[in-house]
């Protein structure tokens, strides 16, 4: 990739260099453009609260997009993430509910519920990975099968209703902030300053949501693994050319199973986080289409569905862009239905740019 880029640079000089950089980072530029436009059209869009809000709401999508990034780079696709997320959310909530009802201390029931939810969510990934790697089932089919199975199990656990009556500390953790400042009077970490009056709550400045901290932490690890470890390099190798990867001595089957397990685990993490954020166990409805929006985010971020191309940072830009669009449109008073149209159009734009200027990427 870099050699390709530099060749064109040499031949065209400085102006095209700027253009190249712009086109290469078009997603980021487009994100800034959206921010600028919505700042003008939407009252209250350009504010600390709202930006934190957008990040807070896009946490699940960031995790799911990161999961898809790995799978897509390895040349596959994972359609089950949305429902695996629902499964972990409902399962961990159910366990928390039972433990909470049997008067276990809140932290213990939260911890056990979360850990069980995460552990169980490795299983769908293991199964689909094994089907794909050992039995040559196309990824689309294997994960679509898991899509059905996890959805059925989820609905069976929750009987079609969200699971409530969970420990009350959950929401405090999921929706809390790192820093609370009451200008000129008080500063406190992780919880609101004590003895605060009702009227003062409006003045309270909340900075750095816990969800940002959490997603930043997870995404940093994932970015590091993809960029700087052998596992990440192998992922690119498997996606770039399967035959070459086998000849280079990579255990492709094991690697694919690990990739799908990781994707499933991240979806489970998103589900557990969802419980912390909303305070209930949500099953995934049909019309949510989390997996498709996650894939859209990854593709907007410059990945190719053919494999071998993509990055965590790009996926983050793509995932945030979709949320930002939704938030900006609704603040600007546009009907929410336009969101679907807008996401569709941006997605087409992303791929068409990718196709028209292959030398850019």
């Amino acid at each position, binding site marked *: 990739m870099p050699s390709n880029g530099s060749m064109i640079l040499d031949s065209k000089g400085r102006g095209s260099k700027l253009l190249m950089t712009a086109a290469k980072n078009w997603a980021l530029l487009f994100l800034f453009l959206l921010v600028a436009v919505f700042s003008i059209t939407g009252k209250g869009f350009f504010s600390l609260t709202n930006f934190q809000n957008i990040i807070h709401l896009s946490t699940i999508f960031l995790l799911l997009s990161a999961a898809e990034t790995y799978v897509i780079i390895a040349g596959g696709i994972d359609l089950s993430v949305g429902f695996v997320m629902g499964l972990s959310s409902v399962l961990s909530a159910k366990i928390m509910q039972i433990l909470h009802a049997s008067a276990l201390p809140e932290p213990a029931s939260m911890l056990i519920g979360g850990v069980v939810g995460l552990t169980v969510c490795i299983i769908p990934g293991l199964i689909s990975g094994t089907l794909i790697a050992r039995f040559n*089932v*196309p990824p*689309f089919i294997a994960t679509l099968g898991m899509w059905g199975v996890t*959805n059925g199990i989820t609905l069976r656990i929750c009987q079609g209703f969200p699971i409530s009556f969970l420990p009350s500390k959950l929401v405090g953790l999921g929706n809390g902030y790192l820093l609370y400042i009451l200008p000129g009077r008080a500063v406190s970490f992780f919880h609101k300053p004590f003895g605060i009056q009702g009227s003062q709550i409006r003045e309270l400045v909340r900075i750095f949501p816990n969800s940002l901290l959490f997603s930043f932490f997870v995404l940093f690890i994932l970015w590091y693994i993809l960029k700087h470890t052998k596992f990440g390099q192998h992922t690119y190798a498997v996606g770039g050319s399967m035959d070459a990867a086998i000849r280079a001595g990579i255990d492709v089957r094991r690697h694919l199973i690990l990739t799908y397990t990781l994707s499933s685990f991240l979806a489970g993490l998103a589900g557990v986080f969802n419980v912390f954020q909303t305070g209930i166990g949500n099953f995934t409805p*049909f019309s949510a289409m989390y997996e498709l929006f996650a894939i859209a985010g990854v593709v907007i971020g410059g990945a190719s*569905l053919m494999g071998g191309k993509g990055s965590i940072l790009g996926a983050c830009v793509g995932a945030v862009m979709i949320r930002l669009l939704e938030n900006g449109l609704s603040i600007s008073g546009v*009907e929410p239905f336009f969101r*679907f*149209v807008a996401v569709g159009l941006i997605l087409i734009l992303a791929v068409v740019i990718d196709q028209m200027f292959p030398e850019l990427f």
Partner: protein
Amino acid sequence: MERSNNRGKGFLMFLGRRWALMFLVLESLVFSFTAPAFFSVKGIQIVLFFGTTIFLLGTAETFVIITGGIDLSVGFIMGFASIVSAKLTVIFTRMGLPPGVGILLGILITWMIGLIPGYVNGTLVARLNVPPFIATFSMLGITHGISELLIRGVPAKNLPYLANAIGNGYFIYSVPGEIVSLFKKPIIQRGVLLYEIIPNVVVIAFVFILVFAFILKRSKFGQHTYAVGGNIDAAIRAGINVKAHLIKIYMVSSFFATLSGTIYMLQYITGKADAGAPFLLDAIVSVVIGGASLYGGIGTVGGTILGCLILSVLETGLRMMGVPTFDKYIAVGIILIFAVLVDQFFPELIHKGD
């Protein structure tokens, strides 16, 4: 080659090649015993009536999957079509046209409009090299958004009564030995047993499915479809206009989705944006059960219909047994993986003799 082997193996081969059919028969037998009302004229017609959507969407997917693509937008194109046809019908009847003409005009115009998403999909895929997955997913978003804008949260209503009569009516009504009437429900006394045979919508659906099955099997268009899916380079070298052909294929798919939307309008006398959303999985699964390969080049409409029947029987049977429909999704997922595993382990079983 297999002829030289002994007879038992030949029989096994025979069964293995038709495992989907065997599965359907077995499934029907099980439900006949567990759900008392399943094995009856009514029960079978319920399977067909509620299966109409999957039949049509499955046929739509078949064409696209044979060319090696995928169409994610069929579900929401169906919802879009159900809304457009409902709105148009209401407008035409308000203008004072008789309900029959209004419904007919509404449906015909919707069929025309329904070709547009397919044309856009096809252009994106064929001319701009957008992967089918992305192109059709974008179209899913766009049709979803437009249909929500058209109805703004309120389902379309005030459709003429005739729509209900067509959508929920039957082809033949008969009181054994006395009356036989076509299309029209005869006036009978209470308590007299009236047989209703073949729902109208099933007839409409199968007319189109048979025509297109014939086109796929016997015409140049069909042969080109298999050629494009089997090896696109070879197809180009053979002088097939691949780009134009792909656009036509996505238009066929979109047309079948539209058809299923208009039939939904007749069946439920309303239009709903997410009418087809849960059926996307079913459509793709039925195509795969029917022996098609997602890599393209293989697949038949007949196989797809068999796959659709398996799913439709499963759903109806489970519902008649009183099992929660959640279990259906587990079963569908497992059948899907099973179908592909059979295909992987015994490739010589499936693709010989085609």
